[in-house]
């Protein structure tokens, strides 16, 4: 078995300067909320670590997550770090197909037993194994087989992390998340539809640097990226406090860049790094483009209410059933008054 080159060697071969490399390490340290003293450690870890083997499993997904990671206007350092891992299996990106591809997966698993990472995008159908198969193998079987020797599992995107669109009501395929199936290995959720590329690579970098998984929130998401809400970091927040809201997408408020709360922004309940890390090489994020946050990195994303329904709207039926309650109230009131009156009549008779 040929000795894998270290990450540092590969980056050098790719023509990444030392300066550029350290800059990447500094950025990563900063978004991981690590002190500057950790930068050399990150650099050392990345330079000296052998390319870790990564197996990417794609189940019920749309390839949007992969697109997000690969489609950059220009090669980025985080793109390069992807080159630095040994992506041994990825439907969309690998050249091999059929038995060859499956053989590559098995080879990677055997060679790196106990040390490889499994990245999953897409949810897993439990309703009927035939809903989604790869090389004649159901998704759930393939997941279980692949995860058995892994060091950790990273669920990429909201489908893998929480079930996503396939898992939305009425969930025809019985889709579940990785978390629902993998309970004996660490699972890191990197949700989003799609997730932010930088967040993904930073999670990998953290794993390379420390060999551990980062602090996670109650939904299994790294606290460093999913610790604060979009709302708390939103540049439009002052308008929220002042009570200045866009009422429609083309009114004066919308043009003036006022808060999008009334247009259904889910920023207050959405934990993600969009407002700080931004998208498209740090260009912007949806709210800057004038659209409310959809809350794509949250569980129950699809079933949590309309995208354009304000957060504070109660989700209850206010029509006929409420009229029924009113009618019940009238009936009870009539009964109570009748009971009172009959008691009075009885007492009057008794004197």
């Amino acid at each position, binding site marked *: 078995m040929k000795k894998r080159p270290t990450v540092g060697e590969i980056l050098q071969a790719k023509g990444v300067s030392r300066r550029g490399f350290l800059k990447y390490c500094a950025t990563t340290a900063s978004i991981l909320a690590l002190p500057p003293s950790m930068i050399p450690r990150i650099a050392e870890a990345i330079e000296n670590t052998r390319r870790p083997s990564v197996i990417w499993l794609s189940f019920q997904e749309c390839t949007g997550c992969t697109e997000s990671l690969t489609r950059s206007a220009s090669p980025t350092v985080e793109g390069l770090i992807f080159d630095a891992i040994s992506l041994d299996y990825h439907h969309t990106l690998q050249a091999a197909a059929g038995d060859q591809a499956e053989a590559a997966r098995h080879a990677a698993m055997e060679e790196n037993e106990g040390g490889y990472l499994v990245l999953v995008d897409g949810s897993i159908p439990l309703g009927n194994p035939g809903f989604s198969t790869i090389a004649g193998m159901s998704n759930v079987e393939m997941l279980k087989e692949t995860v058995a020797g892994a060091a950790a599992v990273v669920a990429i995107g909201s489908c893998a992390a929480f079930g996503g669109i396939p898992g939305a009501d009425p969930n025809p395929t019985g889709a579940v998340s990785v978390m629902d199936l993998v309970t004996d290995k660490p699972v890191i959720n990197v949700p989003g539809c799609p997730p932010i590329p930088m967040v993904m690579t930073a999670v990998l970098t953290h794993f390379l640097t420390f060999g551990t998984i980062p602090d996670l929130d109650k939904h299994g998401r790294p606290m460093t990226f999913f610790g604060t809400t979009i709302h708390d970091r939103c540049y439009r927040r002052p308008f929220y406090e002042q009570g200045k809201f866009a009422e429609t997408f083309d009114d004066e408020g919308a043009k003036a860049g006022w808060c999008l709360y009334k247009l259904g922004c889910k920023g207050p309940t959405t934990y993600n790094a969009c407002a700080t890390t931004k998208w498209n090489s740090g260009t912007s994020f949806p709210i800057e483009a004038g659209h409310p946050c959809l809350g794509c990195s949250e569980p129950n994303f699809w079933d949590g209410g309309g995208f354009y329904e304000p957060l504070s709207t109660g989700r209850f039926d206010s029509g006929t059933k409420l009229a029924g309650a009113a009618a019940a109230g009238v009936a*009870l009131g009539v009964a*109570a*008054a009748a009971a*009172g009156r009959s*008691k*009075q009549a009885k*007492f*009057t008779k008794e004197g």
Partner: protein
Amino acid sequence: MTTVDGRHELDREAERLAYKPPEVRHDKQGDMPSEERINQAMHHFVKNFNTQTASYLDGCLHCGMCADACHFHVRTDDPRYTPIWKIELFKRTYKRQVGPFAFFYRLLGLKRHVSIEDLEEWQHLLYDSCTVCGRCSLVCPMGIDIAGLVSMARHGMFKAGLIPHELHEVAKTASETGSPLGITGDKFAERADWMGDEHDVEIPMNKEQADVLAVMSSIEINKYPESMAATAKILNAAGESWTFRTDGFEATNFGMLSGNPDWQKASTMKIIDAAVKIGAKTVVLPECGHAYMALRWMGANMYGKPLPFKVLHISEYMADALNTGKIKVKKVDKSVTYHDPCQVSRRGGATQAARDVIKHLGVDFREMEYGGDYNWCCGGGGGVVTIKRADPLRHRVFKLKMDQVEKTEADQLLSSCANCRQSFDDSQQHFNWDYTMGSLMEMVAENLEEVQS
């Protein structure tokens, strides 16, 4: 229904309407067992719960502001004198028996059943320390008429045989003889005759037909008989076809004050029957506060239909007669302040009448601070003045009234209620106070002028 052993002598010479201080108090009437008393109280509380009282009893916020309006609380700082607390048993019975959620209150035992000890304690709160003056009703942010509820709660207390000794005696005498002081029709006619002679005024008695029926209160007949002459002078001067009747002369209504609706109705019906018999168009009520409430506002409801005649308090009659020029008065060179009887002014709505009369008298009128509708009560209304054991409390409360009067520095203090007057007289004696309560009607009668027609 109830009997009391050991009746007490009428004390006709006393400063006020009362029996001699009972040697042995009988504040429990009859010999019902406690269970029966509780039942009676509950039954007769329950009878009063209509839409109006129910909303009142359901609406209380327990804000306690009524305490700040009540003279008994203001002067003693005793929290039990908080007006809404006085009807606590009434309220509790409502919630347990008739309120919309009565079922739950009973099921879950949320409101304790009223006990005999409760009822005995509340006798003091519902009778000794409430004059039904209604000041609390004006402060309540929910607009609850607490005074009205006290009157209703008394119904249950009466039927339970748990009312103060003297009040029961007075009310019983009234029901038996037609007058709380036992004054019969003959005695009334005798007195009228005497007053007519003494004051040289014609007092018509028992006319078969008359436009106006005048009635008197026993307090006046007994203690201020000049009132009869004054009434006659005024009605004669106005040229009214009027009369007194021996079959309907008593204006006071101790059935109402003590809490017996049957006796209340009997007293009221005597006046109504007499007025109907002579075809009266107007009944003129004497200077008596609760008489006004009993006939003007409750009379028709006792009768069960609108009354076939108008009901006027003497102050209203005088104001009307003076305003229309039926009578005229000489100017009086005095400074005067006026004490409003609660049931006539605050609760009766005739506040302006007395002021119109005073204006015609041309006196230097000095309104008390917060006079009129917000006036402090004399402390003797609602039957309190009859209850001997309540004297110390009543005197304590009277201080408020004294301060209010003294601030005006008026020469003369007037009112238009004999019950207020006797309560003032009694307190005056107790405190050796300078002010003597006078009668507005008597001042008018003394200063009548001939009207050229």
